[in-house]
């Protein structure tokens, strides 16, 4: 049955996330933005020890596990809960959300492509000890959206795989590779002649010789999150570091990359929602203070330009939110969601980019000032229209699906 209502337990859980946002993220938000590579270690420690909060922050999930083992018939809803909590935390700060110690996109890849033993082996560290990070490295200097063009190689040499190549744009790459006992999942080709089928994910442990962080980027926004360039030079890793099978099958490895995107795109959409809602809430409070009423239900011809803009922001955000919920719900209910995940991502990325830009405009000089966070949210929002597939790549995916075209027919 169609239902848009969150049950009281979930509402309460979200209140807790909201408190984390309000009390732990917002107070350091501006400072982390102004001091890009300075690490908020106290925030890391607090987030790590708030294990209850941390358990749901993890991106991705295990398809084999029920949410509540005592009720085996209870429907799965891990992804819906994840998008809800992600929005709440990104309302606090999207950069800090991305820098929160957890298995991150690396964990998502392990979940999507790993064996049960690998999941246990690689992920148990996130439940114990000191703060740790996981990262995923796909993008290379010579390609972005065309992830089938992976040039980094994985060569079998006795009991090892040997990785060679350069990766860029690795979110939390520095924290995962060098500054914690984490890992980086690296997508590399085992057989260049096999094209997409030869691309496989490998787990590279922190501080493995041959893996070097060569650069940490300076960015427009989400500055609290490190974005690393990582070089692999004769980097030797154990044979069982490959996630899933080493066998090169048609549609093999690349399918795993795509499966990861089906799970992560709704989450990136939810990140966008959080940033957009932060801006919307700020504008709403501001207008209230200024005694500017938002009059729902009156003749649209009598609305002021400000009311119209505000309502447009609100409707666009809600449209993006519902598309995001649907994509997450589909994943939870075992439905193929590539189309809907791309729809959510494309809509949310663009809508929130525009919402935050409009927020700066509506607030006039205050919006442009670094005294308040609105201009930062505009800068933060933009990344959601780019990473995990740009607006344009998602539009191509949507177009292929609705037209029933292959990537050869529409490219």
């Amino acid at each position, binding site marked *: 049955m169609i239902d848009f209502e969150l049950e009281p337990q979930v509402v309460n859980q979200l209140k807790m996330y909201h408190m984390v946002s309000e009390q732990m993220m917002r107070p350091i938000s501006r400072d982390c933005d102004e001091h890009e590579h300075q690490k908020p270690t106290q925030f890391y420690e607090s987030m790590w020890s708030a294990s209850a909060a941390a358990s749901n922050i993890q991106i991705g999930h295990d398809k084999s596990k029920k949410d509540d083992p005592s009720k085996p018939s209870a429907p799965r809803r891990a992804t819906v809960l994840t998008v809800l909590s992600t929005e709440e935390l990104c309302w606090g700060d999207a950069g800090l959300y991305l820098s929160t110690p957890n298995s991150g996109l690396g964990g998502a890849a392990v979940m999507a492509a790993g064996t049960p033993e690998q999941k246990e082996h690689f992920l148990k560290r996130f439940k114990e000890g000191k703060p740790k990070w996981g990262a995923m490295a796909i993008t290379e200097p010579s390609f972005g959206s065309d992830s089938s063009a992976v040039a980094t190689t994985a060569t079998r040499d006795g009991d090892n795989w040997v990785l060679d190549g350069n990766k860029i744009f690795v979110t939390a790459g520095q924290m995962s590779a060098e500054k914690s006992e984490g890992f980086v999942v690296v997508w590399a080709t085992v057989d260049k002649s096999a094209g997409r089928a030869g691309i496989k994910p490998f787990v590279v442990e922190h501080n493995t010789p041959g893996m070097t962080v060569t650069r940490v980027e300076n960015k427009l926004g989400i500055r609290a999150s490190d974005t690393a360039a990582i070089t692999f030079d004769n980097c030797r890793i154990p044979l069982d570091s490959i996630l899933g099978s080493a066998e090169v099958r048609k549609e093999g490895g690349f399918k795993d990359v795509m499966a990861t995107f089906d799970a992560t795109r709704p989450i990136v959409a939810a990140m966008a929602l959080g940033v957009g809602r932060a801006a919307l809430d700020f504008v709403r409070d501001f207008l209230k203070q200024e005694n500017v009423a938002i009059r729902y239900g009156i003749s649209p011809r009598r609305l002021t330009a400000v009311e119209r803009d505000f309502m447009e922001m609100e409707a666009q955000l809600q449209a993006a939110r519902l*598309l995001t919920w649907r994509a997450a719900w589909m994943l939870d209910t075992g439905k193929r969601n590539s189309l809907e995940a791309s729809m959510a991502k494309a809509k949310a990325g663009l809508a929130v980019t525009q919402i935050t830009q409009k927020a700066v405009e509506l607030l006039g000089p205050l919006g442009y000032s670094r005294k308040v966070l609105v201009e930062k949210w505009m800068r933060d929002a933009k990344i959601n229209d780019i990473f995990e597939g740009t607006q344009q790549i998602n*539009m191509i995916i949507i*177009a292929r699906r609705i*037209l029933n075209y292959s990537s050869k027919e529409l490219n």
Partner: protein
Amino acid sequence: MIDFELSEEQQMIRDSVGAFARDEIRPAARPADESGAIPAPLVAKAWQFGFVSGAIPEKFGGGGDARSAVTGAIVAEELGFGDLSIAIHVLAPRLFAFPIVEMGTDDQRAKYLKRFAGADFAAATAAVMEPRFDYDLSALQVSAKRDGGGFVLNGGKCYVPLAAESDLMLVYAATDAAKGFAGVDGFIVPRGAAGVTISEREKNMGLKALATYEVTLKDCRVGADARVGGDKGIDFSRLMSQSRVALGALGVGVMNAAFEYARDYAKERKAFGVPIATKQAIAFILADMAIEIDAARLLVWEAAFKLDKGGDGLKESYLAKNYVAQSALKVTDNGVQVLGGHGYIREHPVEMWLRNARGFSAIDGIATV
């Protein structure tokens, strides 16, 4: 708990109404648009679905179905996919019957509902809109003044569907202009009532198959028993939220019609030796149409869901309907654009859908769930 699955019943309703819309309404749409007339057999067949009679209580001979705005939105979308004019025509008796079902007095139910449970289409309507650019549902200009035991209605209405064909009309008027939505009441005005003038049929850009009229009320006297709900009155805000959900859902149907047509055309039509759909310039337009349709549908469903839960749904339905008014225009315009010059020719339906879709920014209150 968040769920996007239709119930089995809703799926059945969607499939059967959808098939009717595709197979029977759609082929009639263009001739009806050109001639201004909807074939009576088609209207009679639509009546058999029970869009109106289903919600009439069993004791008056109806189906006694529990009304659901979500289910109503699903039905409206399918009908809108068939044709907007025909959809509004076949649903028009709801405009009179449903407020009586939900908010009428026992006497009003007993007196007026039986006729909607019969085998034949019973034309009835409501007069909501007013002929001003900034007519406002929360500040109606048509007034109802107490006079002895009854009321005197004065003012002008427009876009009243089937006004000339209907035996019964609900006229919405402000009894207390200072109270906004709460100051609006509904009055039952029978055919031929003194002081009521129905104009010639209106001529509009779109919705050409739908007969709409201006209605002028000059010292039109009605008894106290004509006031829907008696002294309790009505919840006009809720009625208008229901209407926005219906119009929003109809709009999603129109968008979907334009999308499917343009998509299929783009896969067939070749330029430079390949289907134009294989070009990003066209493919991206279609992708954007698909996103907007799903986004609009979900906003409409959410507003409907709020109403079903007993909320007023004012904000949700207002934002959803306004969203549809914008996106239906954009999507149907893109439908014409994808077909290029052919889209501009009346041989194809896309230009009709663009004309119909433009109407959503103008219309209110002429359909309900």
